[in-house]
């Protein structure tokens, strides 16, 4: 088990490193000019442009720039513009000259928002979604099963953002059944944190719950017809234990696989959700940074998102090996 975790950790780190190189390449090797972006369109004299280029070492070889950028993440670095020295402590992900703040500082307040959102989403789909799917599988062929499955199909055929906007409009503003979305740090007030995120979670989660219900139903229908389920029943176990212990454990495997693939999608969904409920998360930050060409911030967000993604995938891998012992041995 330890060996398995170590191996997975190693491959996770190499993915992060690859992302680092690729994002760096995208922004600095691609034909965008960071110096011009920082300088702005108006009032950009040739002199100021050259100044920026020199101060930010943008005239140096790309490899050296990359080394400096990477070193900054571990030991910090300083940026000098127009004679002002900006200190950027480790882990330094660059300096946003648009807002005059280190990128790390801008991100650090926003990471918990997105992580809270995605974590809540995961809990929702993996509990409610899987539970509903298992119930439907147990009662397959009945009217309840058909109603449940066709309604999930209808719901998941409507584009996500329309559902999200409608719920937001009708249930929090016109008929305030649900609390308005908003973010309060968990450390400040767990209750407010929960209430503020409740609607965004529901909007992001319920939608995917319908899909997870269908995945788990399919997987559970198959598992429930396995020979070892018959064996479990022949032992005298109750229907509940057979379904939610013996069958669910195997039935979860394909669901967890889909979940691992789906995490990237849920980060994308988080961007919409943050926008709709005006949550100060990474998604909102990246949207505003895109409109102002704030390259260091975009780069930072991409890097941090990839770390979140890789971390989640790592958790999924470990969960996978806990569910299915055969994974560890192969």
């Amino acid at each position, binding site marked *: 088990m330890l060996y398995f975790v170590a191996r997975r950790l190693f491959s996770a780190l190499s993915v992060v490193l690859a992302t680092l190189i690729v994002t760096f390449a995208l922004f600095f090797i691609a034909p965008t000019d960071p110096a011009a972006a920082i300088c702005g369109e108006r009032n950009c004299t040739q002199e100021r442009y050259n100044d920026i280029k020199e101060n930010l070492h943008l005239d140096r070889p790309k490899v050296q720039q990359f080394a400096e950028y990477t070193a900054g993440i571990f030991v910090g670095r300083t940026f000098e513009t127009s004679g002002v020295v900006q200190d950027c402590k480790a882990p330094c992900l660059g300096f946003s000259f648009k807002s005059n703040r280190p990128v790390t500082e801008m991100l650090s307040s926003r990471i918990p928002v997105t992580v809270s959102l995605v974590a809540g989403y995961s809990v929702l789909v993996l509990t409610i979604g899987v539970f509903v799917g298992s119930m439907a599988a147990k009662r397959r062929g009945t009217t309840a099963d058909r109603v449940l499955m066709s309604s999930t199909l209808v719901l998941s055929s409507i584009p996500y953002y329309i559902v999200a906007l409608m719920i937001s409009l009708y249930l929090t503003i016109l008929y305030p059944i649900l609390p308005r979305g908003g973010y309060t740090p968990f450390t400040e007030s767990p209750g407010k944190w929960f209430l503020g995120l409740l609607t965004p979670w529901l909007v992001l989660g319920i939608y995917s719950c319908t899909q997870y219900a269908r995945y788990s139903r399919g997987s559970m229908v198959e598992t429930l017809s396995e*020979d070892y389920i018959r*064996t479990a*029943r*022949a032992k*005298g*176990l109750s229907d509940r234990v057979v379904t939610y212990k013996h069958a669910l454990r195997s039935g979860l495997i394909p669901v967890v696989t889909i979940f691992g693939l789906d995490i990237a999608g849920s980060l994308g969904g988080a961007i919409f959700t943050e926008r709709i409920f005006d949550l100060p998360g990474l998604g909102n930050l990246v949207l505003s940074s895109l409109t102002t060409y704030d390259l260091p911030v975009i780069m930072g967000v991409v890097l941090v998102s990839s770390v979140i993604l890789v971390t989640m995938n790592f958790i999924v891998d470990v969960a996978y090996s806990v569910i299915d012992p*055969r994974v560890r041995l192969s």
Partner: protein
Amino acid sequence: MTTPANDASKGPRDTMTGTVPSGGGVAPERNPSVATRERRTAAISPSGETPYLVVEDLTVQFPTADGLVSAVNGLSYSVPLGRTLAIVGESGSGKSVSSMAVMGLHDPKRTRISGSIKLGGDELVGLSENELMKIRGDAVAMVFQDPQSSLHPLYTVGNQISEAYRVHHKVTKEVAKKRALEMLDLVGIPNPIRRFKQYPHEFSGGMRQRAMIAMGLVNDPKLVIADEPTTALDVTVQAQILDLLNNLQKEFGSAIVLITHDLGVVAEMADDVLVMYAGRCVEYGTAEDVLARPRMPYTWGLLESIPTVSAANERLRPIKGLPPSLLALPSGCSFNPRCPYADRVKGERCTTDLPELLPVDGAGAHTSRCHLHDKASIYEAEVAPRLG
């Protein structure tokens, strides 16, 4: 043919007062009307002993979109403690379905079960799921065909065995583990402590089936249903597993219902034999009667289709044709389209009348379902020489 109980097979068969074996199966007390006595006679074990499991007129039907599938039709048999009944037949003859009914494993919403299944005198048909749960795995255990797919791949073998024990005994995990280790040792799995922590995929086929047997016997069941326990195994391992079952039966004194299509297994294991065809019992008697004096063309066909060493150069003699669809059974005897002897019966009886299950020699417990009236002479003159 090694159990002393076999000696009783020559005794009178029309009475319920046979010797009560050590386990103490109790004969059901019922109103002894003439009709029930007659039906009960049919269900008495060919040995004449007091049976532990009594199945009477069992019918299992599945309503499907294409119509009603009658998988088992009017099946009656009984098994005393310490004896082994082999149920033989092709795939789809209803042998597994009938024993699943004994375990109460059919989904009540999708299955119609009628008739009677009595276990130690208690009726099982019509019991609620909760009542059946208490019996399953405790008084009746099942050993399934393919241990590869019948053991849960994601739980350790030890975990699965102790779970089976804890379902029916309120004990701590440690006590259950001790019991499981004991069982692993009993079924001949070396190094039980290490094996306890392993998963089924780390076991070989034979070891898996041993583990499966350990799981079935962990609660000391009075009745063990073994559903083709050796089909998925190598021939050499098959013999070991059969020996194991035989020895465990001697030790626990339980009744065994052995479902198989392998007549070699039957010869080695069974005290009594029931041959099924298309959901019906077509021949029933002691192993000696059925194997040495078979009185039904289908049984002859089964015996003839066994390859023998002496006839190595001959082609196999399969039973021609296919088993009938359970949705549309042939009228009359279900076996008549495949029966090479049907033309020897006068008139159209084979295609119009379903033969009764009658004693082959006018009385006695060896019964068969066939219109032929000179079965004994046809067998001796034509079939027996071919069997070599």
